[in-house]
């Protein structure tokens, strides 16, 4: 056995690696760690856009995600709803995904209680809407007609929250929280028609690179880049939540991987140097 230290460093048993990963993911759940937060410009821009909506403005939040991307999309949904409710905006939530409908409804109900939002007066949930592009095309011209019923099948026509909302021009902002490329349809069918509309997008982290060109052109006003974006948003709101906890875990996991790469290379170099 050439069991030199260097040799060992470049062949750590994978179970040790896995145990270390579990530790760095679990520990921050119980002992939240404070890490420096750097707010990305894209997050700041989304925050500023929501800040610039006049009081009692109308914001639509589309929550097109399912349980599979809960870790990233749930904190984003919470953060954006929280911000809207802090600012006392009128909120409409809906979803192009069956699971996303239930998940966003649960979140919105909980936050509505926290902020004293009254259903039908301050906020509404339009429920599940299949066929995204059809919905988008029709909401540009007629919002009460497109969303004539809420998630429970009740008519929305007489709800105070919908008063004065006829078409897309009466909407101040739309924020899409999605695990798919649905932003392209929003840009093509809705934002393109009404350039004054602020369109925010909250993608999962794997989708972030796709959004850069649209951010640069201003077609997307701002984004929350995955869980990190949500954590930045939470700190802008001064309400650290699940994303801040999660970013602790995830940051440590990244640090762990980078450390392991360095250790492996040190071992590789040192043992190679000896052989020659």
């Amino acid at each position: 056995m050439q069991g030199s230290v260097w040799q060992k460093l470049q062949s750590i048993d994978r179970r040790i690696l896995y145990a270390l990963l579990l530790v760095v993911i679990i520990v921050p759940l119980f002992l939240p760690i404070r890490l420096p937060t750097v707010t990305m410009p894209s997050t700041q821009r989304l925050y500023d856009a929501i800040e610039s909506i006049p009081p009692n403005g109308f914001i639509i939040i589309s929550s097109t995600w399912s349980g599979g991307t809960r870790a990233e999309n749930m904190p984003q949904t919470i953060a954006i709803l929280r911000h809207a409710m802090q600012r006392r905006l009128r909120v409409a939530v809906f979803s192009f995904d069956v699971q996303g409908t239930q998940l966003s409804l649960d979140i919105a109900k909980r936050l509505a209680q926290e902020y004293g939002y009254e259903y039908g007066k301050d906020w509404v949930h339009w429920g599940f809407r299949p066929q995204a592009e059809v919905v988008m095309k029709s909401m540009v011209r007629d919002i009460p007609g497109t969303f004539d019923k809420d998630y429970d099948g009740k008519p929305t026509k007489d709800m105070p929250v919908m008063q004065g909302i006829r078409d897309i021009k009466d909407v101040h902002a739309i924020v899409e929280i999605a695990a798919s490329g649905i932003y392209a349809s929003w840009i093509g069918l809705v934002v393109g028609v009404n350039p004054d509309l602020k369109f925010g997008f909250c993608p999962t982290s794997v989708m972030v690179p796709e959004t850069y060109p649209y951010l640069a052109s201003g077609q997307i006003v701002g984004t929350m880049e995955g869980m990190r974006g949500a954590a930045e948003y939470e700190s802008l709101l001064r309400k650290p939540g699940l994303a801040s906890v999660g970013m602790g875990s995830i940051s440590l996991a990244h640090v762990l991987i980078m450390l392991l790469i360095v250790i492996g290379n040190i071992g590789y170099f040192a043992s190679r140097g000896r052989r020659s």
Partner: protein
Amino acid sequence: MLEPLVRFFAPKPLSVIPYYVAGAVVFSILVVILLINLPARARKPLIAIVTFLAGLFYATEFFWPIDEATNKNFLTDYLVSASKLGSLLAGMTLTLGILSLLRVHGRNVVRLRSGWYNSLALLTAMVAMVIFGFMDKYSDNATAKRVFNVLFEGMLINMDATMFSLIAFYIVSASYRAFRIRSIEATILMTAAFLVMLAQVPVGLALTSWIPRDGVWDFLRLEVIKEWLLTVLNAAALRAIAFGLGIGSLAISLRIWLSLERGAYFEKEI
């Protein structure tokens, strides 16, 4: 001339449907009997014709001139039916897959092979899901709906999520093992991954966050480097790969469509 044919295939009143269906079944069986007696040398050309015609539908629909006003040609209205037809045909093979599962695991159980109880668990889970899945859809039984919920949300969705999350472990062991400065290529791979990893998390970003934004040295900020890597280098490289893949898929499609493809399945005598 086409008129009677179109009328023949038009939807029929529900009262006579059973007769039409029975007629279609009998006719199809006759055709199959005819096919069985087809001389062997006519088989390949027949398959080639079927393949060609199937492809011809989509090709013609795409290339045929369109009416400017409606953005359609004479085939466009059949696209929906065609995609239903494709799903229906492909769906019918599921039974073959399920039969494979039943065959392998049924035999394990019957012959009490080692691990037969796993096979039994598989079959039980399958039957349970089928029963409660249909009850959930077609009945109002509240208990059945609760059981289905446990099977679907409680088990299936969580098991999906767990297998997916295992990748987190594998990504650690793979990067630890593979990212070594062994060769130029491995070094490049590692450096790019390392830079992007740093730019993904606040701890890494903090390293360069003191560099003023919009200043001369702005391009040294990690998030700027990452964005440049992804939007310029990555986008260009992936696009080049995609062009090659596109042309490759075009070539294979042509070969299959025109029955020019070679290789085991396509060359065998039938």
